[in-house]
């Protein structure tokens, strides 16, 4: 999305904004899907992200790309939903979520299945920076901005997350 498009969308060009949101829709769904391992949640979070993006388009400064801005909103929306779910989640529901995640990765080749499974075992605070860094190639500062954490914290989380991931994958191999 170039700066001219941003200005037009910010000043009420609804058609242009709709077009830009459509262009980023699949990207967003895939991001949340990979991060959560839950198809339904990916669509729900994406929908809520779109609504928030429409409401907050005037707050978009254009410092980062439009897709990064959407990822930032999606990450916060995902964490909010997870926080609410955590309060209400019963054992059966969390088991169902786990099975759903396994179902999603079940069709993948063994090596990638192991990686995705190991990744989904990690806490959100470690998984999200790893997904953003190693799946999407964002740098630490961008991730810090997206997750509202300090750059140092992001670095240490990625480091710890990768350590856990290596351990988990080592266990699988062994």
């Amino acid at each position, binding site marked *: 999305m170039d700066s001219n498009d941003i200005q037009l969308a910010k000043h009420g060009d609804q058609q242009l904004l709709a*077009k830009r949101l459509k262009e980023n*829709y699949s990207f967003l769904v*895939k991001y949340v899907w990979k991060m959560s391992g839950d198809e339904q949640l990916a669509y729900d979070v994406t929908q809520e992200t779109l609504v928030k993006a429409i409401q907050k388009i005037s707050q978009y400064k254009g410092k980062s790309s439009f897709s990064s801005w959407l990822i930032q909103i999606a990450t916060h929306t995902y964490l909010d939903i997870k926080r609410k779910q955590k309060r209400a989640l019963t054992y059966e529901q969390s088991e169902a979520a786990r099975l759903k995640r396994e179902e999603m990765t079940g069709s*993948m080749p063994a*090596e*990638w299945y192991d*990686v995705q499974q190991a990744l989904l075992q990690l806490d959100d605070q470690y998984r999200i920076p790893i997904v953003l860094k190693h*799946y999407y190639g964002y740098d630490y500062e961008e991730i810090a901005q997206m997750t509202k954490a300090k750059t140092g914290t992001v670095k240490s989380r990625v480091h710890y997350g990768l350590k856990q991931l290596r351990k988990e994958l*080592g266990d699988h191999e062994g």
Partner: protein
Amino acid sequence: MKDDKNIDSLLRRTAHQMDKEIEVEEPSLAYFTDLVQKETEAWYKRLWIELALLWLTAAVCFSVLAVSVVYAPLVFIGIQLLSVIVLFGYFFKESSRTVAWRS
């Protein structure tokens, strides 16, 4: 798989593979246009309601302030009178109890 480069390339390959595996059902442009229109309208509606409530609250606050400025001396005298009555009541009650003990 142990070193950073290996895990990085493995993660990238996994992401690439997942991108290929995941099939997203993308709605049509009309859906997005409709969503943008509806949400923008809803947003402005909410904004108007919030502004109206803000003005209402401000009006109530100003009214209360105006009333309290006009009646401040009366309120002050009323509180003083109430305090004196309560204190005298307490004094008489305590002194009558003390007299009762003495007798």
